[in-house]
């Protein structure tokens, strides 16, 4: 009995236990509200249902979140991802809209290449500002967050570019093996990032840079190069997410595409247990966090919570998840002891534990 108790304690202590509980709780609440919520049926040769919508709409957030995880692991932050989404989506849609045959695969591939290329350039810009010039990440990426929206609008000339291209559309709403293609792309990128960071020393090096950039440099790691790299990866992830966001509605809106996705991504990373102080990251946590946030958004629509209260509803759920996940908070309630001994422990470990 004691072993099962210990095992239970180990499970609940896992950093992803509480986000997972919150995700299940949301799904249960939806099912109680409307028993058909979990129903998934076949329609036009693919699966159809709210769960499928959640997967499809979470894909861009997962992508942006993966890039953000690596950036945050180095102790940085990337605020420009939302604007990057808008830019890559805008340049791709602009190119496709200029093609005589919008359904031609070659034109779409060039459009995707243009989007990725531009993302690489902008990622390099961010990376250079942070790693070479040494500007604080929050300020360096704030530049593109603000100016990037302008750039996206410049590309679209302030209009919404509507396209009619089946190959491009499939990036956002296409299906593969009855499941949304977008989620396969996101999963593919996730596996690639996981393989590169966890099967090689790169992940550890990133964490070392996040823990102490100067110490890791003295230990022989080219920390500036690593910092540069994570901003480029983040930009490319955001660029691909931009394709999905614009393909979802077959149009590029420089104003609205990817708006505030940087905040959702940071939230997903934090819920997933990655420390904002850097030095530690969890890719699976970020994916779970992204799914949780998308489920929360879909819940608001599915339960038809009034727009005036929906933001409050979201805030309350996020606060609860962050609190129960915070070790300092849990420790205080689990032991039911006076606060005094718990406080210094929390302070000592602040580098590691700031998920809230």
């Amino acid at each position, binding site marked *: 009995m004691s072993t099962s108790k210990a095992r239970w304690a180990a499970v609940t202590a896992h950093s992803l236990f509480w986000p997972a509980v919150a995700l299940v709780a949301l799904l249960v609440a939806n099912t109680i509200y409307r028993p058909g919520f979990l129903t998934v049926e076949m329609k036009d040769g693919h699966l159809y249902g709210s769960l499928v919508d959640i997967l499809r709409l979470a894909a861009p957030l997962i992508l942006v979140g993966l890039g953000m995880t690596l950036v945050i692991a180095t102790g940085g932050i990337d605020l420009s991802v939302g604007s990057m989404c808008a830019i890559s989506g805008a340049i791709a849609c602009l190119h496709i809209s200029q093609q005589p045959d919008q359904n031609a695969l070659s034109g779409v591939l060039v459009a995707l290449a243009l989007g990725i290329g531009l993302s690489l350039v902008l990622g390099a810009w961010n990376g250079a500002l942070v790693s070479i010039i040494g500007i604080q990440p929050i300020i360096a990426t704030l530049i593109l967050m603000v100016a990037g929206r302008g750039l996206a*609008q410049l590309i679209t000339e302030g209009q919404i570019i509507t396209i009619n291209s089946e190959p491009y559309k499939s990036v956002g*709403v296409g299906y593969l093996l009855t499941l949304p293609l977008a989620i396969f792309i996101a999963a593919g990128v996730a596996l690639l990032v996981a393989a590169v960071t966890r099967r090689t020393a790169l992940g550890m090096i990133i964490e070392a840079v996040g823990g102490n950039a100067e110490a890791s440099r003295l230990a022989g790691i080219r920390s500036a190069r690593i910092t540069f790299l994570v901003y480029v990866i983040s930009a490319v992830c955001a660029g691909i997410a931009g394709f999905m966001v614009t393909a979802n509605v077959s149009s590029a*809106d420089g*104003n609205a595409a990817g708006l505030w996705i940087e905040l959702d991504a940071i939230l997903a990373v934090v819920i997933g247990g990655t420390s904002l102080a850097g030095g530690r990251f969890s890719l699976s946590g970020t994916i779970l966090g992204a799914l949780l946030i998308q489920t929360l958004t*879909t819940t608001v*629509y599915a339960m038809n919570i009034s727009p005036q209260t929906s933001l409050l509803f979201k805030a309350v759920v996020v606060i609860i998840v962050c609190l129960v996940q915070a070790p300092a908070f849990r420790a205080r309630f689990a032991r039911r002891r006076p606060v005094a001994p718990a406080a210094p422990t929390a302070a000592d470990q602040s580098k590691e534990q700031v998920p809230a």
Partner: protein
Amino acid sequence: MLTMGKAITRRRAVAVLTATLLATGMAACGNSDTGEQPADDGKLTLGFSQVGAESGWRTANTNSIKESAKEAGIELKFDDAQGKQENQITAIRNYIQQKVDVIAFSPVVESGWDTVLKEAKDAGIPVILTDRSVDSADKSLYKTFIGSDFVKEGRLSGEWLVEQTKTATGPVNIVELQGTTGSAPANDRKKGFGEAIAANPNLKIIASQTGEFTRAGGKAVMEQFLKANPKIDVLFAHNDDMGLGALEAITAAGKVPGKDIKIITIDAVKDGMQALADGKFNFIAECSPLLGPQLMDLVKKVKAGETIPQRIETQETTFTPEQAKAALPTRKY
């Protein structure tokens, strides 16, 4: 960056001071110095400060004003405030300095205009507000406000639906895609629509949610509406873009937009009109940006000293699919 910010603030402070001094100086001179006005050649001068170029709607608005000024023989001094109130205040002060005949602008925000409007009034330059209003308690600070009536747009949409469904015996289920929560168009369109459909107790809004005025928002919300409500007869979207997003969700659900689900939207931008002409939408209430001709007319009247009403509505219409087909070739936005 900090020092740059400081420099700008200092420069702006100097500019503000200069402008204020000039305005006071001019007010002291009174009306005796009309001989110095640049309007000597008899041509009217209009200083216009635009919000920015954030949407196709706004671009069409700008073009309308520029073109109709040319046609009316009015010299237009145009300024793009790029969404910033301070730019707009600077522009208005410049117009006061240049002694234009009339100033018109679309306020970026509602509040904070009293000082600069007072300066214009003291300089004897009449001000016309376009598209958006200000919350100044002193209504004498501006001559008139010309713009769309959002409540009316909602009401026209509702009245069309009431007319279409007057033979319906059973309940008609409506879902509503609201604009950005708390924005004037969203509140007013919801209000007007709600008032109009109250005429028929069969008409019921079964779900209402914000789609943030965007296609992606409209689509994501509509997807869940379709799953939660097996019987949806009508969609009312507060703008074309949300309706266009919802179109895709409806098609993906295996339903035919325009037939299985009737769609009513507001704005009448090009993509929306195309959908209407294709029979995917059923009705659009126009929210027209083309207020240039009306504005030029007002400028002339104001300068001639005629009295004009404090509130003037933009000339707007509604579209059915047939009317959309006829209007599309000459549509400017």
